[in-house]
Structures are given as structure tokens and as C-alpha cells.
């Protein structure tokens, strides 16, 4: 199996990008990634294309990949749209890595794109629900936020986690996102403001939920032994792992943990021969604040139930023991569903290369980074471990 390296990354601003079509967004991210390959690469070298997109709003649901390759001038490459809800582009990355590892190609493109803001709000409710259990959870009136709220309530009951801990995640990520020119929301917030904001699904308020964003991201990967041909600062994919969990949260034995995260992380750590304490920086899937707290535990950054404490101690701030979501996370950076996964890769690659735009977001001396991308309420998860 070939080792894989990342040679270029790109990402659009995440936000309310009404004036850009899907293909324009992806092209923007792709061109940035192409440009990021500092010794240059010919577009024709890209042989496999994997684009994550969960199809919010409908649009080109069939042959989406062909629409994209056409627009990008990549017609002729093998292309695939990957859908695993919010983990779509994380899995697109995985597919690209596997393609290169297998030896079937030398260079592959992974990325993701989503437009969410041009769907009317009342129809958006439907689209936000398609990644969960349609029959039982949805027909009991459950929403996407509601499912995470159930996890939060149980976590609060079993471990004494408080609403304040949830709010702290939001405050931290907003603080980071304020220094990310590509973030959807670039404004700090306070604990009081989060706690007082409108309730969406008790105990989650508006500020516990990630925004509805448009955006795209892209990563170019190649065989590790060829990486230096393209760039002096490749970032290596040291390990990856993926797993699934019961689709319906109510069917899970433990709703305070997402087993697909636990297993995906274990597999990635094993492949990379690292332990959780070796991780210097991580981008985790904080679609809701509780998801970040649960992720700390699932990824082994702290013992089960101690996620709130880790946060309280400031260990997940930039400068802490394990900086989490220096980009602002899904909460502040935004969550264009299909684009989030490779957006996380974009951030970690920049962190490891020391090329983060605003220096107060740069984690110093980061050698090993982790990305954690989960689909829906945890039905699928993919974890990548990157090394410089």
C-alpha cells in the first residue's frame, strides 16, 4: 500500500453565498488547491475525482460528478459523488487516499461542495432531516438538533455536564472563527449571550447550533514518494479510519457517545501508530456544541464523561494541551454539509505547514493533526491523521 501525501488545499469562504452556483463554488476551491501546489501541477495529472455533496435542495442529484469535472476541465478523469451526509467530503478524502494507496492512480482530487441557502427555510427543514431516521425519529417530530439535544440531556444526566459547558464550546469556537477570514461567522460571543439565545431543541439554543452555510473545499493528494516533485511542504496522511453506527440514536446502547467516532479514531490511531495524546491539533465535528464535548471523549482526548472538564481547563483552546477547532469549527466557520470534511483537511494541512493566514490562530509546532468528520447524528464517521 502506497503512502499518501497532500500537496495542495483550497477552500472558499463559508457563508451565505447566494450569488455563486454550485460549480462556481467548487471551481473556486479547486483553483485555490491547484495554486497551492507550489511547484505546479498539470490539471491532466488528476486521474480520480471524489466530491462530497449531500444534495441539499435537490439540484444535480444525478451525475453530479460529471457536472463538476466538466466545469473544472477534468473531463476524462474517473469521478464520483460521495454522500455520507455531513461526512461526505471526509469520505471523499478517504476515497481519494484509498485510490492512491491502491496504486490505481498517482494523483487524486478530493473535495466537497454544498449550497444550502438557496432553499426556502420551510423546505430546508425537510432536507435537514433526511440524514436521520426518517420513519421513527422524524415521525415522532424529532429534528436534527433534537437528536443531539437528546444526547446532551443524557450526557448532562450521566456526567453532570452543564449548559455552561455547551456554551463554552460556542464561545471558544467563535473566538477562533473571528480570526478566520473564511469563516461564515466572524464574531466573538459571550457565555451569557449563548445561554440567553432562543431555544431550538432544549437544551440547545441557536448558538449551540452550527449555521446553514454554502461553500466548497478541495484537496489534491498524491503518492507520498512523488510529493516533493510538487511541493516542499507536503502533509502526509499517516492514518485514517472509518466506521458506522446505528442510524437511529434511540437504537444505540449509549447515547452519550458516537460509536462510529470511537471506532474510526481507533482504526486511524492504529494505522498511524499514534495515541490520542500525540495529537497536536484537531478539527472535530461540532455541528452542535454537545458534539464537540462528546468528540473529545470519543477521540480519547479525555476519559469518558470528562469532556466538560477538559473544556473548563482551557485545554482545547489554541495554546492548550489539545487545541480543537482552531478554524472556528462548524459552529463558527460554518457547515456546508458536503464541504466540511475537506474543509477540516484544509485547516489541519495549513496548521501543520505553519501557513495559517492569521497568526493568532496558528498552533505552534503542530506536527500531528487529526480531522474528525461525522455524518448526520453519527451514522458514519471518518477520521484522518495527518503528519508534517
Amino acid at each position, binding site marked *: 500500500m502506497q503512502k499518501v501525501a497532500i500537496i495542495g488545499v483550497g477552500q472558499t469562504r463559508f457563508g451565505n453565498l447566494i450569488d455563486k452556483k454550485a460549480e462556481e463554488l467548487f471551481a473556486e476551491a479547486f483553483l485555490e488547491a491547484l495554486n497551492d501546489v507550489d511547484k505546479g501541477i498539470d490539471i491532466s495529472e488528476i486521474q480520480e475525482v471524489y466530491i462530497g455533496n449531500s444534495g441539499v435542495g435537490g439540484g444535480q442529484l444525478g451525475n453530479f460528478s460529471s457536472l463538476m469535472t466538466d466545469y473544472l476541465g477534468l473531463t476524462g478523469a474517473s469521478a464520483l459523488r460521495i454522500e455520507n451526509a455531513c461526512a461526505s467530503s471526509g469520505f471523499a478524502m478517504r476515497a481519494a487516499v484509498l485510490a492512491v494507496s491502491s496504486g490505481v492512480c498517482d494523483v487524486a482530487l478530493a473535495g466537497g461542495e454544498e449550497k444550502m441557502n438557496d432553499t426556502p427555510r*420551510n423546505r430546508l427543514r425537510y432536507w435537514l432531516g433526511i440524514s436521520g431516521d426518517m420513519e*421513527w425519529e422524524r415521525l*415522532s417530530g424529532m429534528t436534527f438538533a433534537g437528536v443531539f439535544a*437528546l444526547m446532551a440531556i443524557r450526557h448532562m444526566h450521566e456526567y453532570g455536564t452543564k449548559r455552561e459547558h455547551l456554551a463554552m464550546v460556542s464561545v471558544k469556537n467563535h473566538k477562533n472563527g473571528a480570526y478566520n477570514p473564511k469563516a461564515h461567522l466572524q464574531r466573538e460571543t459571550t457565555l451569557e449571550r449563548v445561554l440567553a439565545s*432562543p*431555544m431550538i431543541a*432544549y437544551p440547545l439554543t441557536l448558538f449551540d447550533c452550527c449555521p446553514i452555510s454554502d461553500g466548497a473545499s478541495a484537496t489534491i493528494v498524491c503518492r507520498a514518494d512523488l510529493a516533493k516533485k510538487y511541493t516542499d511542504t507536503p502533509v502526509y496522511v499517516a492514518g485514517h479510519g472509518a466506521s458506522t453506527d446505528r442510524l437511529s440514536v434511540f437504537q444505540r446502547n449509549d447515547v452519550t457517545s458516537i460509536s462510529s467516532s470511537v471506532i474510526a479514531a481507533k482504526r486511524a490511531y492504529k494505522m498511524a501508530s499514534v495515541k490520542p495524546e500525540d495529537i497536536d491539533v484537531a478539527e472535530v465535528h461540532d455541528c452542535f456544541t454537545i458534539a464537540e464535548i462528546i468528540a473529545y471523549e470519543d477521540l480519547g482526548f479525555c476519559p469518558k464523561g470528562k469532556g466538560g472538564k477538559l473544556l473548563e481547563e482551557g485545554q482545547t483552546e489554541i495554546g492548550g494541551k489539545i487545541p480543537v477547532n482552531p478554524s472556528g469549527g462548524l459552529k463558527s466557520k460554518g457547515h456546508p454539509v458536503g464541504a466540511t470534511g475537506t474543509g477540516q483537511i484544509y485547516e489541519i494541512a495549513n496548521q501543520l505547514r505553519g501557513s495559517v493566514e492569521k497568526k493568532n490562530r496558528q498552533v505552534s509546532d503542530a506536527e500531528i493533526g487529526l480531522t474528525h468528520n461525522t455524518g448526520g447524528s453519527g451514522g458514519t464517521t471518518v477520521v484522518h491523521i495527518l503528519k508534517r
Partner: protein
Amino acid sequence: MAHVSIPSYWKTLPQRYCLIGMKCKNCGTINFPAREICISCKRKSEFAPEKLSGRGKIYSYTIIAAGSAPPEFSEQEKLAGSFPVAIILLEEGLKIVAQITDYEPEDLKIEAEVEAVFRKLYEEDKVIRYGLKFRPVKKRKSLSCEVPNWSKTNL
């Protein structure tokens, strides 16, 4: 607009109307909802219907704020505002997700005892979809015992 079609809904009526679980003849696990491959022994099995009692406790809950519910519940939202949805741990050891109805705010807590009741869930294309919700179990004033559970009727 996707939705659960009538034929799909109809297939699940034994679960939705009267809480029929499917007991795996291999390993005895009650599968709810029904499925082809037993969730426990992971084999294609034969199943025997078993009526669940409808009694349980709240395992977790949330309150869905008015304005955010799935489209099927927009009518309900208009009439009744925000509503609680809970994971209920049934007596038989398995979990179900359902709305809580006929409650007071103080009834929403983990471990609170609840019982299944037959109610309207929503209406689509003029067809009323009925199903189960759960309500807090109350001690009746005139009797020393609680409201009897479902299972006594249909063993």
C-alpha cells in the same frame, strides 16, 4: 418532497398502533422496529410477534421549539407550539422514540414513568396518521393503584 408513503406507514401499523415487537426465535431479542435480520444475533431469523406493555421511563428528552419541527408537524406546531420528544426505555429493555403528551413541565425528567397512548400524529393528503405517544403515569385519586397498562388487554 419525500415523506413516509402510505404503504410504508401501513406496514408499520402493528408497531405504531399496538407496540408489537418481533421476538427473534434464535436469540430471544425483541426487535423493534421489525426487521429481516435480527439486530442481536445478526442472522436472518424467524420472528414471533410480542406485544409490549407500553410502560416505560423517560431515558432522555428534548423540547422541539415551535418553528423547527419536520414539515409533517407544522400543523401541530401552529395549534400547540413547541413539544417534547423523548427516548423511552420500555419495561422490556428496549428503547423507542415518541412525543410526550398531556404533560406538565415538571413531568419531563429522566426516569419519569410514562405509558403509551393512542393519538393522532399528523395528517397528510387528508389521511390521518395515528400512532403512539407517551404520557406521564399518574396515580388516580379514587384508587390506590395506577392506571393499568396496555398489556393486560391483549396478551
